């Protein structure tokens, strides 16, 4: 395979500062969309076990959200945690909504509870669960969660994880270092120069 951007001059790039609030929240989120699968691993081989946590999809989502004109990673985490807090409040009353753990309500939930919260954020009553943000109107807030969903798919199932040690560098400096694990899972062989796959099915004939 022709690894990309081999000629790039790889410079040091500002590391995204470690922020547990963001980290925990996004890890919990991407893990809910693309979880590890012990079952598939057992049935079809170890490679099928791995999920978004193993392929750092949370980093991809945070990086992408923060590369927008108005950085959105913080707001995205806020959306999840506000909704989780509201969910806990409605279910348990005051007892579960103290902010002692730094506001990372979403990451504290089990998988079913997370999915329930995420459902609300895509459901018809979602408006009631969004955080009030001074700098954002509702029409800018509402699309954030769908964007986070789409990014998770692209981050996980594209080649991004294969950029290895260069995956957090600016895009021009990334070099594909190894074959992405997700491609192995789905059986995508990677880019190709062509296939002897022309078919001559007579589609014009009747059945």
């Amino acid at each position, binding site marked *: 395979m*022709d690894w*990309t*951007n081999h*000629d790039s001059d790889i410079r040091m790039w500002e590391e995204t500062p470690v922020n547990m609030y963001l980290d925990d929240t996004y890890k919990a989120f991407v893990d*809910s*969309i*693309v*979880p590890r*699968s012990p*079952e*598939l691993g057992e049935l*079809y081989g170890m490679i*099928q076990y791995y999920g978004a946590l193993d392929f750092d999809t949370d980093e991809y989502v945070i990086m*992408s959200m923060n*590369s*927008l*004109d*108005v950085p959105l990673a913080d707001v995205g985490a806020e959306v999840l945690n506000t909704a989780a807090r509201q969910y806990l409040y409605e279910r348990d009353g005051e007892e579960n909504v103290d902010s002692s753990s730094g506001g990372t309500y979403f990451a504290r939930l089990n*998988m079913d509870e997370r*999915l329930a919260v*995420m*459902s609300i954020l*895509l459901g018809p009553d979602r408006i009631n669960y969004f955080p009030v943000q001074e700098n954002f109107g509702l*029409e*800018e807030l*509402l*699309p954030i969660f*769908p964007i986070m*969903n*789409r990014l*998770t*798919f*692209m981050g*996980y*199932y*594209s*080649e*991004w994880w294969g950029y290895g040690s260069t995956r957090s560098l600016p*895009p*021009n400096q*990334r070099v594909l270092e190894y074959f992405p694990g*997700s*491609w192995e*899972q789905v*059986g*995508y062989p990677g*880019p*190709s*120069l*062509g*296939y*002897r*796959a*022309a*078919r001559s*099915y007579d*589609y*014009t004939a*009747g*059945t």
Partner: protein
Amino acid sequence: MDNGYDADVIVIGAGGGGGVIAKELGEKGIKVLIIEAGPWYGNSKWPKPNEEPGAERSSNMADLDINLLKATFTDLEDDMNDAVSGKFRWGVANRDLSPWLRVVPKGGFTWQSAGVGGTTLLYFANSPRAYPEAFEKEWPITYQELIPYYEKVENTLPVREATGTSKEDLFYYGVKNMGWKYVQTKDLTEPGYRAQPNAILSVNPMLNNPDFDFENNQSVGCTLRGHCVNGCCLGPSVDTVAKRSTLVSYIPLALRTGNVEIMPNSFVIRINTGEDNNQGLYAQSVTVRNTWTEEIRELRAKVIVMSCGSIETPRLWLNSQLPENEWVGRGLTNHMIDCVSGIFEEEDLMNALGMSEINPFMGQNSAARFDYPGLGAFEPFGTSPGINSTMIYGTSQKGYYFQNQTTDEEPWDREGIIAGELLREFMREYRRTLSIVIFGDDSVNQSNGVYMDPLQKDENGFIPIISYELTKEDVAKRDQLVGLACEVLRSAGAKTVSRANWPPDVCAHIMSTMRMGYVTDIDCEAKQVKRLFIADSSVLCNGLGGPNPTLTTQALATRTAEKIVSKYFGQGTT
């Protein structure tokens, strides 16, 4: 030019429409300057197009460099199509900077690319004509009138009947089992299926030969490698690349005329007008901002053509404070796209195809279609897994699949985003998955369109907000078409069928925001501003009934070039 003008005609945007009109004008001896906001890939004057400013302009065929294009188009889907930082994104060439901001409130997105070639860089190259009945309904010109222009574009690109792979065969198997018939004509009046008319060079007849040497292949023609969407770079030279984005088709032809010059990395932020007794208000110049240096300059021409696409063209009009018109930015149609997918078992595939896998990554991204005048169209497709999974499982207005109870009447097994363990299971079946994308025949509504955010600005002006809502009738039509697509999957043998149900404001086929007859006259000249023409999908009068809009946009641009010449550059005119 030494007459006070920078060109006879300035074309804003080098995408699906701009490239065409520039070539047509250039062939008639008109001096054209194309101003393009994004980068120019595969041109030796920009050896590192995403990293360094490079030159200012190019007008020379000899600058086109296929090796550079191959080095840039890596076939890697995140590198090419990442919405934030991909080479095909809606943003400046410098990928260290953010993409341009757009507000899409209902959870959709706009899938467009800046750059020479515009969104044709990433399109599937499906090039069907409009449905004649869609013309008869709303257009101020007849379908008949457009046919010679369709033919000219079909011969120039060229458009060829696509060669299918397994995914198409399976699709044909499904539609034939349902009793649908094959339709031969380009001018569709009744439902049926056919091979895609694709702007892709024919497959090399030796391709299936075991001796065909992919490594050292220097021949012209598609090799079914499956990278249409990630930017085809297959061919011995830039102008013979298999997928005919305007980057490799009309732009080289334009350069060959010796009359066309292209200035990439330059965003037109304003159209400036003059006024006289004879013409009234007329377009006089454009204000251009270099996206690397931020330098601002003014360039003058006798005629200005907007080919910025259906969002930026009305945005430019509004940000230039051109005269008010209640249809500027209004009437958006976008084919209210949806996706369905089916997973097949090995045994059923053996029965239908004689092989155990579909392998959606092989072949032209879409090489077959089903047309249904009155409802829309749908087509099987397959891409690399990041894009494919986002389209069929990652985008929905109905939340996650477990939020939706599917009824017996619904022809799909589940609806919504697929997440969790089920996503893992489904994607493990990627090679046995057939995907279908559906394009609805949405109606024109004045309330749908592009607004300017009253407060938020970027360096190019107030930013666009996309507003799109389906009528009840349109929803019903869309559901009917989606149902049909699901039936095709079932009848081909799919064991499980999923419907994504995309939000209404996913914008990939973006049309009719500057409609002919409302914003422009029938020659595509703005009614309120003389010498200002439109040659992009915004000037289409409606959604064409469902067919992919690029070919019609290109046919119309070909016609508009003639109108410009006869009105402003014929004998006795200046």
